[in-house]
Protein backbone atom coordinates (compact mmCIF):
# COMPACT_ATOMS: atom_id res chain seq x y z
CA UNK A 1 0.00 0.00 0.00
CA UNK A 2 1.18 3.49 -0.84
CA UNK A 3 0.04 6.94 0.28
CA UNK A 4 -3.42 8.18 -0.61
CA UNK A 5 -3.21 9.38 -4.22
CA UNK A 6 -6.74 10.69 -4.60
CA UNK A 7 -9.97 10.86 -2.59
CA UNK A 8 -13.23 11.35 -4.40
CA UNK A 9 -16.83 11.72 -3.36
CA UNK A 10 -19.28 12.85 -6.00
CA UNK A 11 -23.00 13.23 -6.63
CA UNK A 12 -24.10 14.08 -10.12
CA UNK A 13 -27.04 13.63 -12.44
CA UNK A 14 -26.18 13.01 -16.07
CA UNK A 15 -28.91 12.05 -18.53
CA UNK A 16 -31.09 9.53 -16.71
CA UNK A 17 -28.27 8.38 -14.43
CA UNK A 18 -28.08 9.53 -10.81
CA UNK A 19 -24.49 9.03 -9.68
CA UNK A 20 -23.22 8.69 -6.14
CA UNK A 21 -19.58 7.64 -6.17
CA UNK A 22 -16.89 7.64 -3.48
CA UNK A 23 -13.46 6.00 -3.45
CA UNK A 24 -9.81 6.45 -2.51
CA UNK A 25 -6.92 5.67 -4.86
CA UNK A 26 -3.96 4.09 -3.10
CA UNK A 27 -2.40 1.85 -5.75
CA UNK A 28 -0.05 2.77 -8.63
CA UNK A 29 -2.62 1.59 -11.20
CA UNK A 30 -6.35 1.44 -10.56
CA UNK A 31 -8.93 0.33 -13.09
CA UNK A 32 -12.49 1.66 -13.16
CA UNK A 33 -14.42 -1.33 -14.49
CA UNK A 34 -18.05 -1.34 -15.52
CA UNK A 35 -20.53 -1.56 -18.38
CA UNK A 36 -21.16 1.28 -20.84
CA UNK A 37 -23.28 4.05 -19.35
CA UNK A 38 -22.33 3.27 -15.75
CA UNK A 39 -20.67 6.67 -15.23
CA UNK A 40 -16.97 5.76 -15.58
CA UNK A 41 -16.12 8.53 -18.05
CA UNK A 42 -18.07 11.07 -15.97
CA UNK A 43 -15.87 10.23 -12.97
CA UNK A 44 -12.73 10.75 -15.06
CA UNK A 45 -14.03 14.04 -16.47
CA UNK A 46 -14.84 15.30 -12.97
CA UNK A 47 -11.29 14.52 -11.79
CA UNK A 48 -9.78 16.14 -14.89
CA UNK A 49 -11.86 19.29 -14.39
CA UNK A 50 -13.89 19.04 -17.59
CA UNK A 51 -17.23 18.92 -15.84
CA UNK A 52 -18.65 20.58 -12.76
CA UNK A 53 -20.46 17.95 -10.69
CA UNK A 54 -23.61 18.84 -8.74
CA UNK A 55 -21.78 18.02 -5.49
CA UNK A 56 -18.21 16.85 -5.13
CA UNK A 57 -15.06 16.93 -3.07
CA UNK A 58 -11.92 15.65 -4.76
CA UNK A 59 -8.50 15.90 -3.17
CA UNK A 60 -5.18 14.52 -4.31
CA UNK A 61 -1.63 13.91 -3.19
CA UNK A 62 -0.16 13.34 0.25
CA UNK A 63 -1.13 16.86 1.39
CA UNK A 64 -4.74 16.48 0.18
CA UNK A 65 -4.67 19.31 -2.36
CA UNK A 66 -8.29 20.22 -3.10
CA UNK A 67 -9.24 19.98 -6.79
CA UNK A 68 -12.91 20.68 -6.22
CA UNK A 69 -15.05 21.25 -3.17
CA UNK A 70 -18.53 22.38 -4.15
CA UNK A 71 -19.49 23.08 -0.55
CA UNK A 72 -16.58 25.48 -0.09
CA UNK A 73 -16.93 26.71 -3.68
CA UNK A 74 -13.39 25.71 -4.60
CA UNK A 75 -12.82 24.77 -8.23
CA UNK A 76 -9.30 24.42 -9.58
CA UNK A 77 -9.30 24.80 -13.39
CA UNK A 78 -8.31 21.76 -15.45
CA UNK A 79 -4.89 23.02 -16.55
CA UNK A 80 -3.79 23.74 -12.97
CA UNK A 81 -4.66 20.26 -11.68
CA UNK A 82 -1.87 17.71 -11.14
CA UNK A 83 -3.67 15.49 -13.63
CA UNK A 84 -2.93 14.54 -17.24
CA UNK A 85 -5.48 12.77 -19.41
CA UNK A 86 -6.26 11.04 -22.70
CA UNK A 87 -9.90 10.78 -23.77
CA UNK A 88 -11.51 7.70 -25.25
CA UNK A 89 -11.69 9.38 -28.63
CA UNK A 90 -8.25 10.51 -29.83
CA UNK A 91 -8.20 14.25 -30.49
CA UNK A 92 -4.82 14.78 -32.13
CA UNK A 93 -4.21 18.38 -33.14
CA UNK A 94 -4.61 18.13 -36.93
CA UNK A 95 -2.24 21.02 -37.72
CA UNK A 96 0.68 19.40 -35.88
CA UNK A 97 2.81 16.38 -36.72
CA UNK A 98 2.76 13.29 -34.51
CA UNK A 99 6.01 14.42 -32.86
CA UNK A 100 4.61 17.91 -32.19
CA UNK A 101 1.50 16.33 -30.70
CA UNK A 102 3.67 14.16 -28.46
CA UNK A 103 5.65 17.11 -27.12
CA UNK A 104 2.63 19.43 -26.68
CA UNK A 105 2.14 18.63 -22.99
CA UNK A 106 5.87 18.55 -22.27
CA UNK A 107 6.33 22.28 -22.73
CA UNK A 108 3.34 23.67 -20.85
CA UNK A 109 4.92 24.26 -17.48
CA UNK A 110 8.60 24.48 -18.16
CA UNK A 111 10.88 26.53 -20.38
CA UNK A 112 13.61 23.93 -20.05
CA UNK A 113 15.06 22.23 -23.13
CA UNK A 114 12.77 19.60 -24.52
CA UNK A 115 13.74 16.21 -23.21
CA UNK A 116 14.30 14.77 -26.67
CA UNK A 117 15.48 11.41 -25.42
CA UNK A 118 12.25 10.99 -23.51
CA UNK A 119 10.21 11.58 -26.67
CA UNK A 120 12.22 8.97 -28.55
CA UNK A 121 11.74 6.47 -25.73
CA UNK A 122 7.98 7.07 -25.74
CA UNK A 123 7.85 6.72 -29.53
CA UNK A 124 9.58 3.37 -29.15
CA UNK A 125 7.37 2.34 -26.20
CA UNK A 126 4.23 2.87 -28.28
CA UNK A 127 5.78 1.43 -31.45
CA UNK A 128 5.35 4.70 -33.33
CA UNK A 129 8.67 4.64 -35.17
CA UNK A 130 8.17 5.79 -38.73
CA UNK A 131 5.02 7.76 -37.85
CA UNK A 132 6.63 10.63 -35.93
CA UNK A 133 6.78 13.06 -38.84
CA UNK A 134 3.37 12.23 -40.26
CA UNK A 135 0.25 14.36 -39.98
CA UNK A 136 -2.56 12.90 -37.84
CA UNK A 137 -4.80 12.77 -40.92
CA UNK A 138 -2.50 10.13 -42.43
CA UNK A 139 -2.84 7.75 -39.46
CA UNK A 140 -5.24 4.85 -38.97
CA UNK A 141 -7.72 4.90 -36.07
CA UNK A 142 -5.56 2.57 -33.98
CA UNK A 143 -2.43 4.62 -34.63
CA UNK A 144 -4.21 7.80 -33.60
CA UNK A 145 -5.35 6.15 -30.40
CA UNK A 146 -1.78 5.10 -29.58
CA UNK A 147 -0.46 8.63 -30.23
CA UNK A 148 -3.20 10.08 -28.03
CA UNK A 149 -2.26 7.84 -25.08
CA UNK A 150 1.47 8.37 -25.73
CA UNK A 151 0.91 12.15 -25.69
CA UNK A 152 -0.68 12.01 -22.23
CA UNK A 153 2.05 9.64 -21.00
CA UNK A 154 4.72 12.06 -22.28
CA UNK A 155 3.01 14.97 -20.49
CA UNK A 156 2.77 13.04 -17.21
CA UNK A 157 6.35 11.74 -17.39
CA UNK A 158 7.81 15.18 -18.19
CA UNK A 159 5.80 16.88 -15.42
CA UNK A 160 8.30 19.31 -13.91
CA UNK A 161 7.90 18.17 -10.29
CA UNK A 162 9.10 15.20 -8.25
CA UNK A 163 5.55 14.12 -7.45
CA UNK A 164 4.08 13.08 -10.80
CA UNK A 165 0.47 13.85 -11.81
CA UNK A 166 -2.33 11.32 -11.88
CA UNK A 167 -2.71 9.93 -15.39
CA UNK A 168 -6.31 9.39 -16.52
CA UNK A 169 -6.78 7.01 -19.45
CA UNK A 170 -10.26 6.40 -20.82
CA UNK A 171 -10.39 3.06 -22.65
CA UNK A 172 -6.79 3.59 -23.78
CA UNK A 173 -6.40 0.64 -26.10
CA UNK A 174 -9.93 -0.11 -27.26
CA UNK A 175 -9.96 -1.08 -30.90
CA UNK A 176 -6.36 -2.33 -31.03
CA UNK A 177 -5.66 -5.92 -31.94
CA UNK A 178 -5.14 -8.16 -28.90
CA UNK A 179 -1.44 -8.92 -29.48
CA UNK A 180 -0.46 -5.27 -29.83
CA UNK A 181 -2.66 -4.27 -26.88
CA UNK A 182 -0.99 -6.89 -24.64
CA UNK A 183 2.49 -5.74 -25.66
CA UNK A 184 1.67 -2.08 -25.10
CA UNK A 185 -0.02 -2.68 -21.74
CA UNK A 186 2.97 -4.61 -20.37
CA UNK A 187 5.45 -2.00 -21.57
CA UNK A 188 3.33 0.89 -20.36
CA UNK A 189 2.79 -0.59 -16.89
CA UNK A 190 6.54 -1.04 -16.46
CA UNK A 191 7.35 2.42 -17.81
CA UNK A 192 4.85 4.26 -15.62
CA UNK A 193 5.89 2.30 -12.52
CA UNK A 194 9.50 3.30 -13.23
CA UNK A 195 8.54 6.99 -13.49
CA UNK A 196 6.20 6.67 -10.49
CA UNK A 197 3.22 7.99 -12.46
CA UNK A 198 -0.04 6.81 -10.85
CA UNK A 199 -2.83 5.79 -13.23
CA UNK A 200 -6.60 5.60 -13.15
CA UNK A 201 -7.86 3.93 -16.30
CA UNK A 202 -11.31 3.03 -17.53
CA UNK A 203 -12.12 -0.24 -19.22
CA UNK A 204 -14.86 -2.74 -19.76
CA UNK A 205 -12.39 -5.35 -21.07
CA UNK A 206 -11.93 -8.13 -18.54
CA UNK A 207 -8.63 -9.32 -20.05
CA UNK A 208 -7.14 -5.84 -19.75
CA UNK A 209 -7.99 -5.60 -16.04
CA UNK A 210 -6.45 -9.02 -15.31
CA UNK A 211 -3.36 -8.35 -17.39
CA UNK A 212 -2.66 -5.16 -15.44
CA UNK A 213 -3.09 -7.00 -12.13
CA UNK A 214 -4.39 -3.66 -10.88
CA UNK A 215 -6.65 -2.55 -8.08
CA UNK A 216 -10.19 -2.56 -9.47
CA UNK A 217 -13.15 -0.33 -8.69
CA UNK A 218 -16.27 -1.96 -10.07
CA UNK A 219 -18.95 0.57 -10.93
CA UNK A 220 -22.54 -0.02 -12.06
CA UNK A 221 -25.42 2.42 -12.57
CA UNK A 222 -23.50 5.27 -10.99
CA UNK A 223 -22.52 3.43 -7.79
CA UNK A 224 -19.30 1.76 -6.66
CA UNK A 225 -20.16 -1.92 -6.26
CA UNK A 226 -16.82 -3.19 -5.00
CA UNK A 227 -13.15 -2.20 -4.72
CA UNK A 228 -10.12 -4.45 -4.30
CA UNK A 229 -7.61 -6.66 -6.13
CA UNK A 230 -8.70 -7.74 -9.60
CA UNK A 231 -8.71 -11.44 -8.67
CA UNK A 232 -11.28 -10.74 -5.98
CA UNK A 233 -13.48 -8.03 -7.53
CA UNK A 234 -13.78 -9.57 -10.98
CA UNK A 235 -13.76 -13.25 -9.91
CA UNK A 236 -17.42 -13.71 -10.87
CA UNK A 237 -16.97 -12.13 -14.33
CA UNK A 238 -13.91 -14.30 -14.89
CA UNK A 239 -15.75 -17.47 -13.89
CA UNK A 240 -18.61 -16.63 -16.24
CA UNK A 241 -16.24 -15.96 -19.12
CA UNK A 242 -14.38 -19.25 -18.56
CA UNK A 243 -17.70 -21.08 -18.50
CA UNK A 244 -18.75 -19.52 -21.79
CA UNK A 245 -15.42 -20.47 -23.35
CA UNK A 246 -15.83 -24.08 -22.13
CA UNK A 247 -19.35 -24.25 -23.59
CA UNK A 248 -18.04 -23.09 -26.94
Amino acid at each position, binding site marked *: MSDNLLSLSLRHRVGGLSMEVAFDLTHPWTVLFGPSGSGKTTVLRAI*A*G*FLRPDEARITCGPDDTVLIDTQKRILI*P*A*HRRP*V*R*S*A*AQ*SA*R*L*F*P*HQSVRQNLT*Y*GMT*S*NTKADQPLELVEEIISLFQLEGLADREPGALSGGERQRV*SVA*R*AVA*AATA*YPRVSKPLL*LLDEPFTGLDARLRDELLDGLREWLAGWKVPVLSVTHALGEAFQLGAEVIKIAEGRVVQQGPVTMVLAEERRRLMEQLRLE
Partner: protein
Amino acid sequence: MDLEALWLTLRLAAATTLILLLIALPLAWWIASGRGVARALAQAVVALPLVLPPTVLGFYLLIAMGPLTAPGRLLIRMFGHPLAFSFEGLLIGSVLYSLPFAVQPLVAGFESVDSGYIEAAAGLGASPARVFFSVILPLTRSSLLTSAVLAFTHTVGEFGVVLMLGGNIPGATRTLSISLYDLVEDSNYAAANRTALALVGFAMAALIVIYLLPGVRRSRGRQADLVR
Protein backbone atom coordinates in the same frame (compact mmCIF):
# COMPACT_ATOMS: atom_id res chain seq x y z
CA MET B 1 -8.97 57.68 -61.39
CA ASP B 2 -8.48 59.76 -58.26
CA LEU B 3 -5.22 58.29 -56.90
CA GLU B 4 -5.46 60.34 -53.71
CA ALA B 5 -8.87 58.77 -53.04
CA LEU B 6 -7.46 55.32 -53.81
CA TRP B 7 -4.59 55.79 -51.35
CA LEU B 8 -6.97 57.11 -48.66
CA THR B 9 -9.34 54.19 -49.23
CA LEU B 10 -6.55 51.65 -48.86
CA ARG B 11 -5.20 53.34 -45.70
CA LEU B 12 -8.69 53.43 -44.21
CA ALA B 13 -9.38 49.78 -45.07
CA ALA B 14 -6.03 48.58 -43.68
CA ALA B 15 -6.38 50.49 -40.41
CA THR B 16 -10.02 49.41 -40.03
CA THR B 17 -9.09 45.74 -40.61
CA LEU B 18 -6.29 45.86 -38.05
CA ILE B 19 -8.45 47.48 -35.38
CA LEU B 20 -11.37 45.17 -36.20
CA LEU B 21 -9.30 42.02 -35.78
CA LEU B 22 -8.08 43.20 -32.40
CA ILE B 23 -11.68 43.80 -31.31
CA ALA B 24 -13.31 40.88 -33.13
CA LEU B 25 -11.04 38.07 -31.88
CA PRO B 26 -11.87 38.36 -28.16
CA LEU B 27 -15.45 39.45 -28.86
CA ALA B 28 -16.15 36.51 -31.20
CA TRP B 29 -14.52 34.06 -28.78
CA TRP B 30 -16.68 35.36 -25.92
CA ILE B 31 -19.85 35.13 -28.04
CA ALA B 32 -18.98 31.61 -29.25
CA SER B 33 -18.04 30.23 -25.85
CA GLY B 34 -21.43 30.36 -24.14
CA ARG B 35 -25.09 31.29 -24.10
CA GLY B 36 -27.16 33.89 -22.26
CA VAL B 37 -28.87 37.24 -22.58
CA ALA B 38 -25.62 39.28 -22.57
CA ARG B 39 -24.20 37.28 -25.48
CA ALA B 40 -27.47 37.45 -27.45
CA LEU B 41 -27.52 41.22 -26.91
CA ALA B 42 -23.90 41.54 -28.04
CA GLN B 43 -24.64 39.50 -31.16
CA ALA B 44 -27.64 41.67 -31.98
CA VAL B 45 -25.62 44.88 -31.57
CA VAL B 46 -22.80 43.46 -33.70
CA ALA B 47 -25.26 42.46 -36.45
CA LEU B 48 -27.15 45.79 -36.39
CA PRO B 49 -25.12 47.43 -39.21
CA LEU B 50 -26.22 44.58 -41.51
CA VAL B 51 -29.86 45.60 -41.33
CA LEU B 52 -29.67 49.35 -40.66
CA PRO B 53 -29.32 51.89 -43.47
CA PRO B 54 -25.69 53.13 -43.26
CA THR B 55 -27.00 56.67 -43.05
CA VAL B 56 -28.63 55.90 -39.69
CA LEU B 57 -25.31 54.76 -38.22
CA GLY B 58 -23.59 57.76 -39.84
CA PHE B 59 -26.18 60.15 -38.41
CA TYR B 60 -25.86 58.87 -34.84
CA LEU B 61 -22.07 58.87 -35.03
CA LEU B 62 -22.15 62.43 -36.37
CA ILE B 63 -24.21 63.49 -33.36
CA ALA B 64 -22.14 61.42 -30.91
CA MET B 65 -18.88 62.93 -32.14
CA GLY B 66 -20.13 66.51 -32.14
CA PRO B 67 -20.11 69.10 -29.36
CA LEU B 68 -23.77 68.40 -28.48
CA THR B 69 -22.99 65.24 -26.51
CA ALA B 70 -20.67 64.51 -23.57
CA PRO B 71 -18.66 61.78 -25.42
CA GLY B 72 -18.34 64.15 -28.38
CA ARG B 73 -17.01 66.95 -26.15
CA LEU B 74 -14.57 64.48 -24.55
CA LEU B 75 -13.32 63.38 -27.99
CA ILE B 76 -12.90 67.00 -29.08
CA ARG B 77 -10.83 67.69 -25.93
CA MET B 78 -8.75 64.52 -26.55
CA PHE B 79 -8.03 65.11 -30.25
CA GLY B 80 -8.14 68.90 -30.24
CA HIS B 81 -10.74 68.97 -33.03
CA PRO B 82 -14.14 67.40 -33.80
CA LEU B 83 -13.78 63.86 -35.16
CA ALA B 84 -16.57 64.32 -37.68
CA PHE B 85 -15.21 65.18 -41.14
CA SER B 86 -11.78 63.77 -40.26
CA PHE B 87 -9.90 60.55 -41.04
CA GLU B 88 -10.10 59.43 -37.38
CA GLY B 89 -13.87 59.89 -37.37
CA LEU B 90 -14.13 57.92 -40.59
CA LEU B 91 -12.05 55.17 -39.01
CA ILE B 92 -14.41 54.87 -36.02
CA GLY B 93 -17.41 54.77 -38.37
CA SER B 94 -15.78 52.11 -40.57
CA VAL B 95 -14.89 49.93 -37.59
CA LEU B 96 -18.51 49.96 -36.37
CA TYR B 97 -19.98 49.54 -39.84
CA SER B 98 -17.77 46.55 -40.76
CA LEU B 99 -17.92 44.92 -37.31
CA PRO B 100 -20.35 42.13 -38.30
CA PHE B 101 -18.18 41.18 -41.29
CA ALA B 102 -15.22 40.63 -38.98
CA VAL B 103 -17.05 39.06 -36.03
CA GLN B 104 -19.51 36.67 -37.67
CA PRO B 105 -17.02 34.46 -39.62
CA LEU B 106 -14.95 34.17 -36.45
CA VAL B 107 -17.97 33.21 -34.32
CA ALA B 108 -18.91 30.53 -36.87
CA GLY B 109 -15.29 29.29 -36.93
CA PHE B 110 -14.96 29.15 -33.14
CA GLU B 111 -18.33 27.39 -32.78
CA SER B 112 -17.23 24.68 -35.21
CA VAL B 113 -14.18 23.73 -33.11
CA ASP B 114 -14.82 20.44 -31.35
CA SER B 115 -14.57 20.95 -27.57
CA GLY B 116 -12.68 17.63 -27.51
CA TYR B 117 -9.59 19.46 -28.82
CA ILE B 118 -9.87 22.07 -26.08
CA GLU B 119 -10.21 19.36 -23.42
CA ALA B 120 -7.31 17.40 -24.93
CA ALA B 121 -5.05 20.46 -24.65
CA ALA B 122 -6.24 21.35 -21.13
CA GLY B 123 -5.72 17.70 -20.12
CA LEU B 124 -2.09 18.11 -21.16
CA GLY B 125 -1.72 21.13 -18.86
CA ALA B 126 -2.19 23.94 -21.40
CA SER B 127 -3.57 27.24 -20.05
CA PRO B 128 -6.66 28.75 -21.75
CA ALA B 129 -4.45 31.36 -23.49
CA ARG B 130 -2.13 28.65 -24.84
CA VAL B 131 -5.12 26.58 -25.97
CA PHE B 132 -6.48 29.61 -27.81
CA PHE B 133 -3.27 30.49 -29.64
CA SER B 134 -1.86 26.99 -30.23
CA VAL B 135 -5.05 25.02 -30.98
CA ILE B 136 -8.11 27.18 -31.61
CA LEU B 137 -6.57 29.85 -33.84
CA PRO B 138 -4.74 27.36 -36.11
CA LEU B 139 -7.95 25.33 -36.44
CA THR B 140 -9.91 28.45 -37.43
CA ARG B 141 -7.30 30.19 -39.60
CA SER B 142 -9.56 30.17 -42.65
CA SER B 143 -12.26 32.00 -40.62
CA LEU B 144 -9.63 34.52 -39.53
CA LEU B 145 -8.55 35.16 -43.13
CA THR B 146 -12.17 35.37 -44.30
CA SER B 147 -12.88 37.85 -41.53
CA ALA B 148 -9.88 40.03 -42.49
CA VAL B 149 -10.63 39.98 -46.23
CA LEU B 150 -14.35 40.75 -45.71
CA ALA B 151 -13.60 43.59 -43.28
CA PHE B 152 -11.09 45.09 -45.75
CA THR B 153 -13.27 44.81 -48.85
CA HIS B 154 -16.41 45.98 -47.07
CA THR B 155 -14.56 49.08 -45.88
CA VAL B 156 -13.31 49.74 -49.42
CA GLY B 157 -16.89 49.66 -50.67
CA GLU B 158 -18.66 51.68 -47.96
CA PHE B 159 -20.48 54.84 -48.96
CA GLY B 160 -23.36 55.94 -46.71
CA VAL B 161 -21.44 56.14 -43.46
CA VAL B 162 -18.52 57.91 -45.16
CA LEU B 163 -20.77 60.49 -46.74
CA MET B 164 -22.66 61.23 -43.52
CA LEU B 165 -19.63 61.24 -41.25
CA GLY B 166 -16.78 62.37 -43.45
CA GLY B 167 -18.33 64.52 -46.11
CA ASN B 168 -16.14 64.85 -49.15
CA ILE B 169 -12.78 66.35 -48.25
CA PRO B 170 -9.99 65.46 -50.70
CA GLY B 171 -7.10 63.68 -48.95
CA ALA B 172 -8.97 63.46 -45.65
CA THR B 173 -12.33 61.79 -46.20
CA ARG B 174 -12.88 61.40 -49.94
CA THR B 175 -12.74 57.66 -50.60
CA LEU B 176 -13.08 55.90 -53.96
CA SER B 177 -16.83 55.38 -53.62
CA ILE B 178 -17.33 59.09 -52.87
CA SER B 179 -15.06 59.98 -55.77
CA LEU B 180 -17.22 57.81 -58.04
CA TYR B 181 -20.33 59.66 -56.85
CA ASP B 182 -18.62 62.99 -57.61
CA LEU B 183 -17.62 61.87 -61.09
CA VAL B 184 -21.16 60.82 -61.92
CA GLU B 185 -22.48 64.14 -60.55
CA ASP B 186 -20.05 65.87 -62.94
CA SER B 187 -21.24 63.60 -65.81
CA ASN B 188 -17.65 62.37 -66.23
CA TYR B 189 -18.77 58.84 -67.10
CA ALA B 190 -15.45 57.64 -68.55
CA ALA B 191 -13.58 58.35 -65.30
CA ALA B 192 -16.54 57.05 -63.27
CA ASN B 193 -16.39 53.83 -65.25
CA ARG B 194 -12.68 53.41 -64.52
CA THR B 195 -13.27 53.96 -60.78
CA ALA B 196 -16.27 51.61 -60.72
CA LEU B 197 -14.30 48.95 -62.60
CA ALA B 198 -11.45 49.27 -60.11
CA LEU B 199 -13.89 48.72 -57.23
CA VAL B 200 -15.50 45.71 -58.97
CA GLY B 201 -12.09 44.22 -59.78
CA PHE B 202 -10.90 44.70 -56.24
CA ALA B 203 -13.99 43.08 -54.71
CA MET B 204 -13.84 40.19 -57.18
CA ALA B 205 -10.14 39.56 -56.48
CA ALA B 206 -10.77 39.55 -52.73
CA LEU B 207 -13.63 37.06 -53.05
CA ILE B 208 -11.56 34.78 -55.29
CA VAL B 209 -8.80 34.86 -52.64
CA ILE B 210 -11.35 33.79 -49.99
CA TYR B 211 -12.68 30.91 -52.09
CA LEU B 212 -9.17 29.81 -53.05
CA LEU B 213 -8.06 29.54 -49.42
CA PRO B 214 -7.11 25.91 -48.77
CA GLY B 215 -8.95 25.97 -45.43
CA VAL B 216 -12.20 27.07 -47.09
CA ARG B 217 -11.88 24.54 -49.91
CA ARG B 218 -11.37 21.70 -47.47
CA SER B 219 -13.80 22.99 -44.85
CA ARG B 220 -16.53 20.47 -45.69
CA GLY B 221 -14.24 17.52 -45.08
CA ARG B 222 -12.77 19.11 -41.99
CA GLN B 223 -16.06 19.98 -40.40
CA ALA B 224 -17.00 16.32 -40.36
CA ASP B 225 -13.81 15.77 -38.41
CA LEU B 226 -14.36 18.71 -36.10
CA VAL B 227 -18.00 18.40 -35.18
CA ARG B 228 -18.68 15.70 -32.66
